[in-house]
């Protein structure tokens, strides 16, 4: 058991020693943040956040490419070519994918307009009705019966 333990620790961590340090660099993190980890055991996490070995290896590769002088845009493009569009953590803002970004706000705008229109219609049909008189009671009350009545009315006013 002991040897198996050491072997498995080595497998997960040994070769990754240098990889984790690479992730500290801001430039690597900036790119790693935009790519989904494809290890299959984490959910939707970026290569920057995931603590698995696959992510560590990916961060090292990004670091090497940056050192080699590659631009961030071309590194992202490289991953796109290799793994498909799903490697990007969010869809781009072009073409059909723009629909993804824009729709929620359109729905909100449409809803807000509809609501305002409905509210205006409702208030217009009700205009002309007087508001109820709300006269606050004055002075201190000691009579229990009146107090109970006031309590009831107070609740009705404040509710």
């Amino acid at each position, binding site marked *: 058991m002991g040897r198996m333990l050491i072997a498995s620790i080595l497998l997960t961590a040994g070769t990754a020693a240098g990889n984790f340090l690479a992730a500290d660099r801001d430039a690597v993190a900036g790119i790693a943040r935009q790519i989904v980890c494809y290890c299959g055991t984490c959910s939707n996490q970026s290569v920057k956040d995931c*603590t698995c070995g696959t992510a560590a290896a990916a961060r090292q590769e990004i670091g090497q490419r940056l050192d080699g002088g590659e631009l961030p845009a071309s590194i992202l493009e490289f991953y796109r070519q290799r793994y498909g569009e799903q490697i990007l953590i969010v869809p781009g803002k072009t073409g059909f994918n723009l629909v993804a970004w824009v729709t*929620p706000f359109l729905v909100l705008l449409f809803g807000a307009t509809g609501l305002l229109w409905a509210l205006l219609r409702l208030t217009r049909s009700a205009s002309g009705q007087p508001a109820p008189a709300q006269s606050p009671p004055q002075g201190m009350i000691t009579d229990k019966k009146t107090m109970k009545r006031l309590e009831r009315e107070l609740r009705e006013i404040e509710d």
Partner: protein
Amino acid sequence: MLAEIGRHCLTLSLLCAAWAAMAGFLSGKFHHFPLFISARRSLYAGTGLLVGASAILIHANLTNDFRLWVVASYSNINLPTFYKISAMWGSQAGSLLLWALILSCFSSIVVFQYRRRDDDMIPFVASILGGILVFFLIVLNFNSNPFTLLASPPADGNGLNPQLQTPLMVIHPPLLYIGYVGFSIPFAFAIAALLSGRLNDVWIHRTRRWTIFSWFFLGIGILLGAYWAYIELGWGGYWAWDPVENAALVPWLTGTALLHSVMIQEKKRMLQVWNMVLVILTYCLCILGTFITRSGVISSVHSFTVSNLGPLFLVFLALLFGGSFLVLIYRLPELKSPNRLDSLVSRESSFLFNNLFLLACAFAILWGTLFPILSEAVRGVKITVGPPFFNQVIAPIGLALIFLTGVCPLIAWRRATMKHLLRNFRYPVGAGMAGAVLLPLIGFREIYSVLAISLCLFVFATIVLEFFRGTQARHRMTGEPSPLAFFRLINRNRRRYGGYLVHLGILFMVVGITGSWNYQQESTASLRIHETMRIGPYELTFEDTFSRKLRNAEQFGAVLTVRKGDRIVTTLRPARNFYPPPQEPSTEVDIRSTLAEDLYLIFLGFDPEAGVGLFKALINPLVNWIWLGGLVIILGAHFAVLPDRRRERAWRAAEELLQKLESSGGRKAQVAAARTLEGESIG
């Protein structure tokens, strides 16, 4: 053999549910009370059978009966007893059985509550609940049978995923199911009201507690899931906008909208149709939520392996949604209440804006979750919609919601005058602005975080003012000393002040989310023994390693001393657990928690030859305010639903009196009483 008995229990309970559905419907349609009694008893019987089936399944787990497929797949001999019980809902089939059990129990409770009433609505309620049970029992009997046997049972099972072996994960599914299933009750009452023609407010009054109850359990279930992710999964975060997380959040949001708009109907008798729509929508989203989780339609970490469960659920969802709206449209002419709104600036309209933003939020989350499917259908290309999408889209809507939380309670019903608004908002707006100016000075640089916390200060001030002014008014009226006035005030208005407490809890959560999301710091290092890494104000020194034998795993960890300045603050012991194959090792993080921040330490690995350990440290500012907020919400929700004995007595007395008048009063009294019971006002 017990498994055979289990199978028979499932089959018989299907028959009971089917009979309850039929008898209930006929009883309602032809006003035949004995048929309702029969339907009721059928539901009781079904519950008994499902309790039996569940007990048999748990027993099989406890006795290591690996002839059953689910036991062999999700349990093993070495699994602690506590987790052998919870392994019952670790499998697809077992969790469906749990769902059916909870639904059956709730249905029995509801029909028991109204057993003596010769009522128009309740038979239909029994019928609808029976119908929903029929669906789940069909799936259990023919698609995912927990009593399926293996041809050649193994000597030992696979065991439960180690990340599920924590008390949090044991109660997380039952809490969520109580929430999901609980929403079937208001749904059943709404449809029953439509079917029976009892189109007054009675269905709302009867289901108010069930709505809060379900909303509460769903919310706590989601929060516990987030807490589990934070403690167990070990990546330093608590929410990944995973499809399954979203699937639970969306109905919770529409449920929150429902809770609020129901208040308008209770106070102003408006918006009947809208509330019906919200109830139907919320329940359908619950079913959609469980469909997304179970069918694996969007691959995620949570999903069970893809099965042919999907089509069955889709058909059920279509029937539920389509059928509900058909009945609603059929009754639409009779439902139109005299909607009256006195002013655009009134509490009614601010509540409606609350609904708008909550539903926009729900839509945005659902949209982002389902968009990959849409994209694949339209372009044939798979894409990912990950956390940055949701963060960017939800943030502005979230800010608007915080703003409304402060504004709504201070706007009067019917009409708010300018003078009134100015008086109410002076101090809160001042508090918010002070925040906006001071926060950047104490370290909050990110614009969204400044906005969010300033708005929280604004809302906090409005809540404090509400308590204060209420106490002051009561003190002036009655001469009671202020503490007594305060106590009596909140005790006589439990719903309102419990609600304010819930809002306060939400504010705490917003503060926690804002801090931990925007200002997280991280540092990764490889250290030899006695070497030190730095993060923020802390210094972590790697002292030693340790290994420990757990019940079903080998634990290997590191000991690190944490210093701040020159004093030792604590010792952290992050570790990794190694389970027998085929299971992956898990990360056991160690955390130092204070109200200000969490110091979160992950042990990534160890190279024994070089003697080098790999560590990732995170600082999560304000994160514990999230869990604290959860506790405040629990307190507030409990306070809000405490029975108000005076109000209950008054309501019941009124109902009885009116029923007496309807049956034995003079002609005018009879007509008036009938009209009141039907929901119209007395002239």
